[in-house]
């Protein structure tokens, strides 16, 4: 991978607690030697946060569609007609 992608990978290992993540002391040392590492790490954390929100939004959209279909299947059509006769 290109060095820029390797850097994303390195930060990801730390943020997602990958088994290959550096020990805390080593990571701290890296941050001391690389002045932009802390800023890049914070930015990447924000990306993950945004992605999780986007994922949640997409999931909700999909679920709502599925739930409307389930409702129609269970309570639409002749079930709705029966319920009008015998409300539960």
């Amino acid at each position, binding site marked *: *991978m290109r060095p820029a992608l390797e850097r994303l990978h390195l930060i990801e290992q730390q943020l997602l607690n990958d088994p290959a993540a550096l020990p805390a002391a080593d990571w701290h040392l890296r941050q001391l030697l690389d002045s932009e590492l802390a800023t890049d790490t914070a*930015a990447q*954390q*924000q990306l993950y946060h945004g*992605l999780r929100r*986007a994922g949640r939004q997409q999931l909700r959209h999909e679920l*709502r569609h*599925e*739930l409307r279909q*389930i409702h129609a299947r269970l309570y639409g059509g002749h079930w709705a007609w029966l319920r009008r006769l015998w409300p539960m």
Partner: protein
Amino acid sequence: MPAPITISLPPAPPAHALRQALLADRERALTRLYRQAFPAVRRLVQRQGGSAHDAQDVFQDALVVFYEQAVGGALVLTASASTYLVGIARHRWQHELRRRARLPAETLPDDDAHLAAEEPEAAPEPAFAVLDYVERPGAKCKEVLLSFYYFQQPLAQIAVAHGYRSVRSATVQKFKCLERLRASVRAAFRAETIEY
């Protein structure tokens, strides 16, 4: 002869079994929950002056919240799943009644914003919404990123689904997509900073 030793494993916790059922066949598990819990929610809502449509909205909101908790591993069941689900729906309906008492002309909103109160955000709100830029690296990139970072699909599965030759290719592609997303966000942030 000594009696044979039998080891009985404890049954899986109900929330764990439910999570497995939702992941294995979401539609079937949701249909079952719907059938078990919706009639009680409809009775509750209609007894308190709500319509059948209100009951449907409240129940579906509750089921979305319930699903996220169950799949995210945050659900702790001390009663049956349907009892818990009715409890969430009751809470949401009470909340809605109080809201209507303040703003009587409005009905339940259609968007997801009103669900936000159900879910404490672990991380603070980003300075600007990454959410707005997730579409920019392209549809395929968005799918790869969400599959990995939100739906937690293994890279092997992502590779097959998106036609990458190997896990390695999928990994490289995922980081390229992440890089593009970061570039979009940075460009937007720079533009905003210059505007001010």
